[in-house]
Each structure stands twice: as C-alpha cells, then as structure tokens.
C-alpha cells in the first residue's frame, strides 16, 4: 500500500489567498491541481512536500476564451475541457491531437493544462504543443504578473521559471487565421508518455510557407522546439521534400537518452519522422481551412 508522508493541506479560495499561502509555507509547499503527477510521487515518497495548496476552487484560473486575437487558457483548465472545446478545435487542431493521446479519459478529466506544464516532465506532450504554437505563459506572484515565452518557461527536467511564491495563471496563444497545425506521437501503448512526439504549426500564403512552429518532446530538444528547422521552412513550398529536410534539421537539435522506450538513435529518427508527418498534416489542414 503506497501512502504519502505527513503533510499540511490548505484549500485556496482565491488567487491572492493562494499566493498568501505559498508565502506562508515557503519553498517546501507545492501547489496541487489535478494531482496526477504529484500525488503518485508523494505516495512513492519521491516527493515529500510539507504542505499542499489546493487551487482547484480557483475558477478565475479556469477560463478558456479568445480575447484580443489570442486564445487564453487558464492554468486550471482540465485536459478534457481543452479537448472538448469547439473554440480550440476551430483554431488549434494540434491541441486536440495532443490531448487525444494524453493519458486516458479519467486522467484528462482531472489533470490540468497548467499542472502539466509546471510539472515540467521532459516528455510532456503539451510542452511541445504549446512550444509549436509559440505560446506565452502568464505567471502571477506577489508583485503582479509577468509574461514568459513558453519556449523559455522550462529550465530543465522538472524545473520552470515559476518561482516559489508564484503561480502559473494562464497561457496565451495567438490565433493565426488560415494556419494549420498537427501533433504526431509514438507511444508504446495508448496513454503512455511519448517515445517521441512532434507538433507543427504552419501558415501558407501564396503557395509559400510564411510562418512555421515546431514542437518536440521526449527527445531533449532545447525549449521543446527546433528554431533552425522553423527558419528553414520560411519562404519554401509546403512539399514533402521540404518537410523531410525540416525533419532532419529538427532531429539534429535533439539529444535524446536511451531508456526502456527506445535507444537514442531511434528517438532521434522519430523526431525527424514525426516532425515531417506533423508538418505534412498541418499543411494539409491549412490548405483545407
């Protein structure tokens, strides 16, 4: 029977209250939302926070809307809500693709977008999806809010720019009319963490690629992305050979590690192959739009 060590529990009633609790308990407190990573880690005693600050009641972090040409995703939006949102489906097929392959319905009902990003697992699907979309993260602290590009949000495995005493409040993603996006993942079994996965965003004008975003996860791509491959795409035709070359360039920036999901060269191969596939699907969707 797995049981956690002793900890204090506080239920925050507002964002200021949550911030006050974080300040009171200091760096050994952890924020809990869906709890689908934190609670198992506590039961395995890989994590032993002194206090949990439960933010599940903070409805002000659960918004999902388009405002000022951007999609605003509150940190407390559940995976299932993102997946079911017609707004998201209309503009961000990549998020629907990614959410479909994140864990299982039970986890998605409870797990949150913000929690997934703050957990900062090096194999997190949403890190790659939002990196491909060039999203911004809004972080709230005692001194107010600051905006951080998602590509700079993660500082390493299980590390983010969110300081003790701060909360991730929301993600903001520019709505690009006419853009196509897609997410491709290889997993050993449904619901597993990816062996490797790639997301792509593509905007085509007059037959040429005018904007491209690539997100990669589980392959140690710095910032979960591949800027050089993105640059390569700009001004080129959306054809298979171009996507394949972008895939090769994306794979080149990866530094995957061997584990039971596969050896490093296989994962690097997948980074290229899945980038190619995601770009191709994104381009097709852009054309259909």
């Amino acid at each position: 029977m797995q049981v956690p060590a002793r900890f204090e529990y506080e239920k925050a009633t507002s964002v200021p209250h949550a911030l006050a609790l974080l300040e009171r308990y200091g760096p050994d407190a952890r924020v809990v939302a869906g709890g689908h990573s934190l609670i198992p880690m506590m039961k395995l005693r890989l994590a032993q926070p002194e206090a949990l600050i439960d933010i599940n009641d903070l409805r002000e972090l659960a918004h999902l809307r388009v405002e000022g040409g951007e999609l605003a995703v509150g940190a407390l939006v559940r995976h299932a809500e993102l997946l079911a949102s017609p707004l998201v489906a209309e503009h961000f097929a990549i998020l629907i693709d990614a959410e479909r392959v994140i864990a299982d319905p039970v986890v998605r009902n409870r797990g949150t977008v913000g929690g997934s990003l703050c957990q900062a697992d090096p194999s997190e699907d949403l890190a790659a999806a939002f990196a491909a979309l060039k999203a911004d993260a809004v972080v709230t602290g005692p001194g107010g809010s600051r905006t951080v590009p998602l590509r700079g949000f993660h500082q390493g495995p299980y590390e983010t720019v969110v300081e003790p005493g701060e909360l991730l409040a929301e993600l903001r993603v520019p709505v690009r009319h006419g853009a196509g996006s897609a997410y491709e993942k290889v997993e050993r079994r449904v619901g597993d963490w990816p062996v490797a996965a790639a997301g792509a965003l593509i905007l085509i004008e007059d037959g040429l690629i005018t904007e491209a975003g690539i997100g990669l996860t589980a392959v140690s791509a710095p910032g979960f992305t591949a800027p050089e491959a993105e640059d390569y795409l700009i001004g080129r035709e959306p054809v298979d050979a171009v996507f394949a070359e972008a895939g090769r360039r994306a794979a080149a920036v990866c530094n995957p590690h061997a584990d039971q999901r596969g050896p490093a060269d296989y994962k690097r191969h997948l980074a290229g192959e899945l980038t190619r596939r995601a770009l191709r699907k994104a381009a097709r969707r852009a054309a259909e739009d």
Partner: protein
Amino acid sequence: MTTSTPMGFGRMHRKEDARFIRGRGQYVDDVQLPGMLHGAILRSPHAHARILSVDTSAAEALPGVKAVITGETLAGLGLAWMPTLSKDVQAVLATDKVRFQGQEVAFVVAEDRYIARDALELIEVDYEPLPSVIDARTALAEAAPVIRDDLDGKKDNHIFDWEAGDRAHTEAIFERAEVRVSQDMLYPRVHPAPLETCGALADFDKVTGKLTVWCPTQAPHAHRTLYAMVAGLPEHKIRVISPDIGGGFGGKVGIYPGYVCAIVGSIVTGKPVKWMEDRSENLMSTAFARDYHMTGEIAATQDGRVQAIRVKVLADHGAFNGTAQPTKFPAGFFHVFSGSYDIETAHCEVTGVYSNKAPGGVAYACSFRITEAVYLVERLMDVLAYELGMDPAELRMKNLLRADQFPYTSPTGWEYDSGDYPRTLALAMEMAGYDKLRAEQAERRANGDRRLMGIGLSFFTEAVGAGPRKHMDILGLGMADGAELRVHPTGKAVLRVSCQSQGQGHETTFAQIVAEELGISPDDVDVVHGDTDQTPFGLGTYGSRSTPVSGAAAAMVTRKVRDRAKLVASAMLEVAPDDLEWTKGRWSVKGDPKHGATIQEIALASHGAVELPEGVEGHLDATCVYNPPNLTYPFGAYICVVDVDPDTGQVDVRRFIAVDDCGVRINPMIVEGQIHGGLADGIGMALMQLMAFDEDGNHLGASFMDYLLPTAVECPSWELGETVTPSPHHPIGAKGVGESATVGSPAAVVNAVLDALKPYGIRHADMPLTPSNVWRAIQGRPIRTDLAIT
C-alpha cells in the same frame, strides 16, 4: 445474449457479477477486524549485497509502531527461511545477504499504514554491495558470483538439469534430415500483474490457539497444510480464507514472505495484522513468468514434413527456486513442446539457474510452462516455413495430427485425449478469409505499399487439469480435488468445492454443472469456495484445472446425489430402483412417465416421514474426491492480422481470429470471456509487456508506467469460433480453457509481425515487439529484450 437461466449448460449471466458490478465484492483489503494493526515491508535496494547490520531502534521508537521484525527475529523462531514449492528454501526476511532488488528485509507492525510506512524510513541497513548475476547466460560462468552460498557446499548458480524425449533417436533423425533449422529465442520475463496485489490479514487468537489467515490464495487448502508443516501449528487450528480475488493467473499459488510476516506479526502483537503490498512490490517480488532462453531446432524434409524437434533451454529461476508446479517436473509441462504435430521424435534439455532476480517462473496463465512450449514450436514452424518458402498455414496443415491418431502418445510421453486439429485450423482459415488476406498482402507488397501487412498463425495443444495422483503432486500433496453437495429439504443445493475462483466465474459454472446433473435451476445452487473450514480438501485453481478436476468432482458428487435420490424415489413410488428412469430433474417409473417424483419432492421426502430404504440415512448429501485419470488436452487455431509502420515501428493488430476447442462448453459466455482475456494477454506479451533489468539489477518494469498492460485500444474486436471435441475421460467431456488463449496467442501475434517484416529478410525477433524493437529489427540491429536498452 439470453438472460434467462438455463437448467444446466448454456449462456447465463454470472451469478457473482451483481456484487462485483455494485462494488460489493469482499477482497482481503476490505476485511476489517477490531484492533487490527498494519504491516509494511522494508525491501532491498540492491540486487546482491551482504547485510552488515540492521538497526531498528529509531523505527521502534516511533509512536504507533508495535513491532519491528527482522531476519534475526525470525531466525530465533526458526522461521527466517521457508521451503518453496520446488524443494528449495527462500528467505522470509534476509539474514545474511539480499539476493534480488525488492527482497524482504524487515517487517514493521504499526497502528496504521502511514506510521508503518514512515517507520520503514527509520530502519538503517548497512549493505555491502556484491557483484550480481543479471544476464542468465552468464550465471554458469566460472567467475560468476555464487548467489546461494547459504546452501551447503554450493559453489555455482546451477539448480537442475532435466531432459525429456529420446536423445539418440532425435540426433539420428537430425543427422540425416534434408532440412535443419535452428533458432535462438527468448521468452522474456513477464508478470501476471493481477489488479489486486497480494496481501494477508492474519489473526492469531491466543485463547483458542486458532490462526485465521485471509489471503488471496488460489490454493487455500495447500496453504493451510504448508503452514501446519512449516510453522508447526496444528492443522485443525488453522483456517485459511481466500475471499474474492482480483485476479491470480498463477501468481497467487505460492506462499510469500509477507504472509508469514503477517502471521508472525499477529502472534507477536496478539492483534490481527494486515499487510497489503503495493503495485511496485507486487511487480518486483512476486512470482514472475517465463524467462526462458531457448535454442530450438527443427528437422524436416524438403517438402515440409517435420520429423524431429529438439531444444535447449536456459531457465532463469531467480534467486530462489520457487516455481509452483507439480514437483516431479522442474521444467513444468514444457516437454509438451512437440505441440500439435505428428513428429517422429523430440528431445529437450533444460538447465535451471539462479540469478539476482525475484524467484518464480511459473505464473501468468502458463499451464506449467506450456506457453513457452507452444511459443517455441509455433515460432519454429514459422522459421521452417520461412526457410522452405512455404506458406505457414500449409506447413501446419501438412503436419497436424489427424483425428484418427487420437488418443495419441507424443514423443515425450503425453497421451493427448482427443482432437480433430485439421478441422479446427480449417475453420479458423475460413473465418479469417485466409486466401483473401494473402492475396491482399501480395498486392500491397507488389504495389510497394509503405505500410506492411502481416498474417500470423499459431496452433496450440494445451495439457491441463493436473493431474493424475500417481504422476503429479505438489510437495507430496496429490493433485486431486474434492466436492460436497448438500441438498436442502426444499431442493435447493449447496456445493462446496476445493478450488478457488480468481474471477473465472466458478459460482456460475459449477452451479450449472450441478443444475445439468440434477435438473434444478443454477439459481438454486450456491457454490461455496475459498474457506478451508467450509470446503473439502483439494489443491486449488491454477493450470486451468478447475473444470477438468473440480468440475468433474462437482459432476460426480451430483451423480451420487442423484443415485441416492433414486433410492428415495423408489421408496416414495413403491417400485424397485431398477424400474426408475431419470429425466432431467425427475425420477419416474419406466413406461409410466406420469408416475414420478421431482428432485425437490425427493429432497423433502428424504428429510420427511416417508419410510426410507435400507442404507439410506435420511438426506441426499454426498461427498467425493476426483483423481483425474489423465490430463485433458484443449487446443485451438489462432490467426492474427497486423499492420506495421516501418518508419515508426508501430504495430496495429487489425484482426484476431480464435477458434478454440475446449470440449463441452458449460457456459459459453464465460468461456468466451476467458478467451478474450487470454488474447489480450497475448497482445500484451507479444507487443509490450516486459520486465527488464539494468546491469546493476535494477528492475526496469516496477510500475504500470513501465510495465505496460494492453488496453481495449490495442485489442481488435475478437473473432471467436469453436469446435467441440469432448474429452473422452472427463465426466462431462469438458477440457478446461482458462489459459488456452494466453498460451496460444503470443505466437500468433509475433508470427504476424514477423510475417509483415519478411520483405526485410527478418526471420525472428524477440518479444516484446515494441515500436523501438521493431524499428531496430528493421535496421538489422540485435536486440536483447531482457537487458536495459542502451
């Protein structure tokens, strides 16, 4: 699906499902006793290390801790080591060394689970790490560290050598064969991973001296007898209760150290002690399955007539030899490996070795290692087909045993009871549309279709229902099973059986057997099992033996009741017993069917005022023990169709056709459910399940994050078919089916994937065929799936 209740065999909903669906099952962890304490086990982080010291003082000082038990404590009671089911010994709590990662080192008893777990962190163990044996192929090397230096004079890691079949004859055939093909293959270490982990609640009553143990055991009576023999407790003062079990699959046959610890904990504290292991503990320390390194060879004529098979096996049994199987057979029933084919001769050599891994080897619906045997022969058949350029279905059809050869004595001495194999394979091929599938595959290959299509077959023969007493026992206990049937005055019945359901639906199936034999509704039969104070002695449920053995006992005891009823009826109807005839549920006078008595009327009369015939004491109740004359031999033909993406290595199982022949089907719905589960197991083993270890002996599959069970998403909609060849020696012609699909399906899936990869010149790759392993195979890279990926 009919929901009406048949008066005997037929489809009906399971009687036990109402409580399971409504959350009213009663598992060990649901049992709460007043004053109950909780146990937790400290386990070794090392694969192999000497224990220099164990300091429990800080743990003992933690408020709420009631006892800390170490190997030293147990040594004082003579309980530090316990016998295994394979005549070895296993450490209950380590005294000298730890021999696998996850081995039991200390046991804490505390007021609640939290305190018990906190206390584990306060126990200080000083280890001196030792070199370990992780790769079984190095276990017998001169320089290998000796794992079992606790055994007198032990200087190596060798456990046993065992052989079966005719070596000389086999060698002679191989020498002159036109075609000889050899293939190394590994059946990797897997785990049954039942949803309910193991655990025990022990309650020793100091006043009465009675020990009650709630424990999810597949063999409650065997446990009771072993506790009596090992701990010296009088057997009548031990009661083992195996309540609802959340899956066993052979992993809940043996006695685990935690059970003994819970018992000792209760004796020491005078309170009931519950211990439930967590998922990682279950995967790391309880009975694994397989870990067979096999080199198979097949000899044949140029036109595909198989003449001989031989195989050398290196069997990794882990740190203690604790396989749960008939004692006489150290490699279980592996020697049934000549399979379903008319082969002149066969020979196998099996060498068992110790390694620094958890003990076990026989679990996970393996029918005492017939999974390994079937995988070997079915892979070899495909390897031969590959070399001969023959269609694998044609090769099988050409070599299958014919119906007129039964009963058939195999080259290794098995007597297959009945079968019509070509009929079953033909049905599977017809259901699959085999020729069409091959045509589609040829077309896709010709068109250069990037997505690869593969078609895989396997044909298996199982040997279940162990077994005849003269051949089969476990530590001297013969593998028979008992049944008692009590008929109440109103004609309702209670059947008590010695086997124990882990989800198989015994409460329904056995009620249907009684119903069929007695002509009453299954709703009127209650089946009692799992409590040694309530049921007759018998060896329990594993090796698909419930229906072949206990099912036979249930039929036989019901026939005894029917015979008694005949005597009572003869008194009631005032005719000679010989003048009565039986129609389902009723004895009536021959030639005068209106003149009769129903079983309910007879039951009432047997307890009533009617004058009973001499020798009939006044009830219909009966008991019996069934000692099976032979095993039963279910069989089946499986066809799997896959699509493989060579650029990612992903395998998609498109179709799976399974034609099973398990003799007479008592409840076809339950049979199909068993088959569905086993087919999913097969997909799991073939494509994802694996317990690998890194070079330091760290377990790389110790959670469901890493030990992957298949889901509905990976499983196609199963296409089932059946043929019925009754067992000639079983009272109702049933053969048992619990493990058939687990035994037969992995080879079909693997054969399908390798068939897809044929254009790359790949003849074999080991399970599990994960995306990365498929991709590596395509790259021509060697794979060792038992070791960490590097």
